[in-house]
């Protein structure tokens, strides 16, 4: 198998696993539909915005939960934002933790919130490293003169 085919195979296998393991959901497929010759970097651009946004949200969440008196409304607002943005790019596992997180906020359960914060940080880093790897594979395919296979 030549280099391009190998890379394409790798890309397809990797992508399939991301969906199978629930890291990504259909919304990620939707984003890819919005990428074309007129906007060839769209997915990377949106995901990069998501990464930037998420880092800020995670910092703010850490700060908010470390307050002597936790402002649960503020924590909930931050988690709501995180839920929204992760949902918009198809980061399913991150989104799902956010759902639980909001429930703990409603209960004003500080331990539950702390656990969720750790969990959401963990899931975020997992999906980030996977997406970074995915984009790297894409670049490698393109650099080798191939085209990136689309998963319908």
């Amino acid at each position, binding site marked *: 198998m030549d280099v391009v085919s190998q890379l394409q195979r790798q890309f397809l296998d990797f992508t399939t696993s991301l969906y199978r393991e629930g890291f990504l959901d259909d*919304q990620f497929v*939707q*984003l890819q*539909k*919005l990428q*074309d010759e007129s*906007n060839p970097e*769209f997915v990377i*651009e*949106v995901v990069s*915005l*998501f990464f930037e*946004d998420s880092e800020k949200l995670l910092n703010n969440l850490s700060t908010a939960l470390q307050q002597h008196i936790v402002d649960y409304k503020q924590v909930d*607002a931050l988690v*709501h*934002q995180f*839920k*929204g*943005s992760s*949902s*918009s*790019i*198809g980061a399913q596992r991150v989104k799902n933790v956010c759902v639980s997180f909001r429930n703990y906020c409603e209960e004003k359960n500080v331990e539950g919130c702390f656990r969720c914060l750790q969990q959401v940080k963990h899931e975020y880093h997992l999906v980030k490293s996977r997406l970074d790897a995915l984009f790297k594979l894409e670049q490698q395919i393109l650099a080798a003169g191939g085209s990136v296979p689309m998963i319908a």
Partner: protein
Amino acid sequence: MARDGMFSRWRRTEKFEGMSGLSPSDCHDVHVLAVDDSLVDRKVIERLLKITSCKVTAVDSGRRALQFLGLDEEKSSVGFDGLKVDLIITDYCMPGMTGYELLKKIKGSSTFREVPVVIMSSENVLARIDSCLEEGAEDFIVKPVKLSDVKRLKDYMFGEDLIQGEGQVVNKRKLQEACEISSSPSSSPPSISSLSPLSSQSLSSSPSPRSSSPSSPSSLDSPTRRLKMTNCDT
């Protein structure tokens, strides 16, 4: 009830297209004002609209939207009189002014009350949907927004014009409303499965028609409101 009215209109959209043999088209020169406090969502909605050939202005708050429209009380309308906005699509949950509050301000303005407003929300809450529709929202999209959501929005609001002989582009939605007011409404209850926009988001209500509870509309002047009331009576 407002929502039943909206459902009925969906079925007519499908019938209408079938009869005239028109294919859904993208919109040309349609200017959309998109309002969302999330940077990620703004980027996505902007792309969704551009890919369906719409001009987009994206702002991050209700306040900025009102400023753009020249409706901000604190700032005088500076050269916005000739501004043409064909559709406003706004997020519901925003800090400061919510999408619902923005909707009310727009519907309360003589200049912009006829502009269709679509609400987007990540929460599929029936009460929220109903109150937005009651307040005059054209449609309610559950996030995350997909290309199919935007396409069908464009299609039923700004699809191919039908009366070309008069040399005038007719807004398809207005034309449909004119037809619907004169024609008799369908008597069979709408089934949710045939309604792709909302059915995919698993509404919790049952599809059977409910007894129409009289809503208290702010005005009966807008064709949309009148339409919904008409459909309630059947």
